[in-house]
């Protein structure tokens, strides 16, 4: 057998010097950095898009009124710019959504991760992930045309909930985020090392004890991250509340049977509406957008920290 190769000779030492240029490598590097910068530009773009009109808004409306006022009527003749009604409606809907999604999602996750046999799990987990992809406009439709009639029909008293109301929006949103919470918490439970479970079983624990006292606490930061992500999705969700949640914002509505505008519903309605650019009303959309951005920013920060902690524990 003849090959034209030879051992790197003893003279190799000097040949170690950087001689060869590698143009492909340096070109690629530039390309990669440029690509990575797109996301930075996006964030900067968002901030720019929000900041200027928001400053314009706060030139005319005091920040105090904005954060403490209890009426939001920028499109009426008697204008009021207290954002609390929008925030309140947002959190009522989010609260209802969580009340549904957290138990269902967590319970499903515990069942899948601790009880279901591997075959069931292999089938069900992808289906859950599949359902996480259903577009939100579908949930809005379902809320208005399926859940609402049901609610009206089964309502015990004569005066049922309003046609658009926070309750159905919350329920639809809850159903929407169940797959997200279930899937992420299941991931974090699956990441709890076998050794911890074995340790617990070896101490004569039952399955429930292992699930509730070892697996869930060990996965808690992942579970919290899932819930925070659920909150942030609910807070930012637009279509369901726009379709099914109502538009009232002249007062703080806490009764879920009434309709009310969330931050996103307000933005969606007004920005497709007839307000002229540069007007105070137009700027109000961006002020609310900026507030929404800040709230979800804070939630994301919490969630990112949680996820990181949950990674650190076992890696």
């Amino acid at each position: 057998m003849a090959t034209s190769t030879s051992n790197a000779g003893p003279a190799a030492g000097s040949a170690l010097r950087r001689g060869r240029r590698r143009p492909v490598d340096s070109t690629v590097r530039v390309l990669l950095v440029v690509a990575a910068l797109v996301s930075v530009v996006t964030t900067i773009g968002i901030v720019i898009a929000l900041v200027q009109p928001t400053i314009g808004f706060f030139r005319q409306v005091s920040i105090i009124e904005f954060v403490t006022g209890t009426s939001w009527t920028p499109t009426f003749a008697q204008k009021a710019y207290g954002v609390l009604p929008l925030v309140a409606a947002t959190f009522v809907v989010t609260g209802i959504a969580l009340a549904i999604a957290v138990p269902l999602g967590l319970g499903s996750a515990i069942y899948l991760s601790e009880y279901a046999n591997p075959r069931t799990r292999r089938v069900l987990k992808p289906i859950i992930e599949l359902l996480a992809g259903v577009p939100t406009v579908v949930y809005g439709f379902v809320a208005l045309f399926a859940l609402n009639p049901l609610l009206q029909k089964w309502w015990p008293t004569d005066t049922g909930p309003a046609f658009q109301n926070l309750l159905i929006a919350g329920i639809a949103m809850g159903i929407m985020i169940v797959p997200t919470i279930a899937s992420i918490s299941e991931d974090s439970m699956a990441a709890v090392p076998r050794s911890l479970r074995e340790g617990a079983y070896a101490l004569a624990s039952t399955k429930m004890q292992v699930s509730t006292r070892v697996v869930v606490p060990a996965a808690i930061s992942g579970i919290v991250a899932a819930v925070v992500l659920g909150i942030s999705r609910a807070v930012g969700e637009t279509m369901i509340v726009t379709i099914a949640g109502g538009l009232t914002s002249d007062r703080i509505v806490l009764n879920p049977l009434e309709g009310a505008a969330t931050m996103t519903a307000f933005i969606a309605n007004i920005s497709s509406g007839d307000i002229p650019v540069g007007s105070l009303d137009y700027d109000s959309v961006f002020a609310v957008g900026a507030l929404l951005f800040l709230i979800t920013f804070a939630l994301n920060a919490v969630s990112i920290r949680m996820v990181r902690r949950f990674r650190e524990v076992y890696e």
Partner: protein
Amino acid sequence: MSTPTLTTTTTRPDPSAPGNALTQRRSRPGEVAFRLAMQACLLVAFSVLTALLAWVLVKGWNRLDSRLWTEMPTGLVSRLDTAGVQSALVGTLWIISLVAVICLPIGILSAIYLEEYADNTRWYNRLLELNIQNLAGVPSIIFGILGLGIIARALGLGFTVITAAIVLSLLVLPVVIIATREAIRAVPQSIRHASYALGATKWQTVSRQVLPSAVPGIATGSILALSRAIGEAAPLIVLGAVTFITFNPDGLDSGYTALPIQIYTFITRSQSEYTELAAGAIVLLLAIVLAMNSIAIFVRNRFEKRW
């Protein structure tokens, strides 16, 4: 070893008759109840979701035929029964193809940079990473505001297919980046080391070893991202896509409508024909989205290597 002063009342099981105790199975009702409760959660979650989807199917049943994609929307209430959503379907396909072209290369390259090239002890790289994680959680409607203020107006791209595609690309960019990073990270370090140990350069290692191994994960993430973009309505509403359109887009600067937007406008109409049509269009949208997600999940489960 043990301190004699310490007294505890605990005892071992009697070693003389432990065999008997072993067989006295304690009844554990809490155990059964817990299991059933967890099972019930899963069952309820599933049945509600499937019931809702089934309801949409029933509601739109009358409209589930070729009219949906061969016919254009109509402005004539009297002819609603012969209307379809062709322009929205084609608009959606246009947008999604453009999103794929814009978003996937940028997303995958960003992920390669972060995973393989960036020194994550540097503050700017960590900031970059944080920025991407954070963007992933920014509500979609905010991207609509970005698109309206910057892309449509400041950059002057107007209310066109390309504006919608750029906005949706930026929206799902973090999804692609994060999924690609996961896929790249799943390629074991040992493969990279083996390649370097043979004298390969960084890009050789990345392009010949890491990326081929990460393809299933990248494909999965990409498909999921695209299917998310297909279903988004909120940013398009802000972008003024609520438009009656009876023609298919014919270029990047063309006007457009998209399925979720079309569905939204149908929902706001009071005639029951519109509700039916909305349900039909939803089934069409779901079919596309769920098919894409199924492919993604299949690819992941089938081809992703368990190292």
